[in-house]
């Protein structure tokens, strides 16, 4: 079980800020494929992976990063702070 968080328009498209996911995915990319297969709203949110960022346990990561030992995955658009 892994906590999956969504922010900004990713959260709006999927329709919730956080969920617990049962997954056997080895990498972030595999998790994304599992989520896209679920429902149209997930497919829409993850349609253009290049426009998304991911954090593993609150550290920025790449989509090919392994999920082993990770407790929290977050998906969001490029940040616009400052």
């Amino acid at each position: 079980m892994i906590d999956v968080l969504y922010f900004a328009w990713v959260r709006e498209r999927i329709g919730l800020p956080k969920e617990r996911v049962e997954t056997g995915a080895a990498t972030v990319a595999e998790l994304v494929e599992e989520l896209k297969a679920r429902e149209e709203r997930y497919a829409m949110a993850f349609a253009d992976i290049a426009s998304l960022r991911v954090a593993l346990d609150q550290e920025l990561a790449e989509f090919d990063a392994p999920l082993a030992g990770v407790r929290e995955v977050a998906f969001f658009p490029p940040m616009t702070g400052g």
Partner: protein
Amino acid sequence: MRVRVQEAAFDPGRELAGFARGRHDVGAVVSFTGVVRDTEGTLERMEIEHYPGMTEKAISAIVDEASARWSLLDAMVIHRHGTMAPGEVIMMVATASAHRAEAFASADFLMDYLKSRAPFWKKERRKDGTVWVAAKDEDEAALDRWSR
């Protein structure tokens, strides 16, 4: 070194007045204040979402990186989230060092990284609709200035 992420409004003047004062090793203080801009008069509200927990960690890591690059005697980052009106202060950065070049460079660096590497997302509520602010290519490109 101080990092604050908060919903409440704050006064940059008061923060600057209390920053790195009474020290005899500080020769230069640089501050940056970011303000909700509405040049066209069409913005009703700015909403800033963030990632509690990661936000503080990411900002602290950026401040640590600045401290590793320059002789910073003190640094401060305050960033708001929630809803703000045009003209309201969004965030502030301040750096203190012995000489002006280090204070300028480190504040500039902190701003570039906060812009693109701290987990904040801006949404504009405009008269004609609501839009998430898109990250700019030039903001990502600005980071290249600091690669060594």
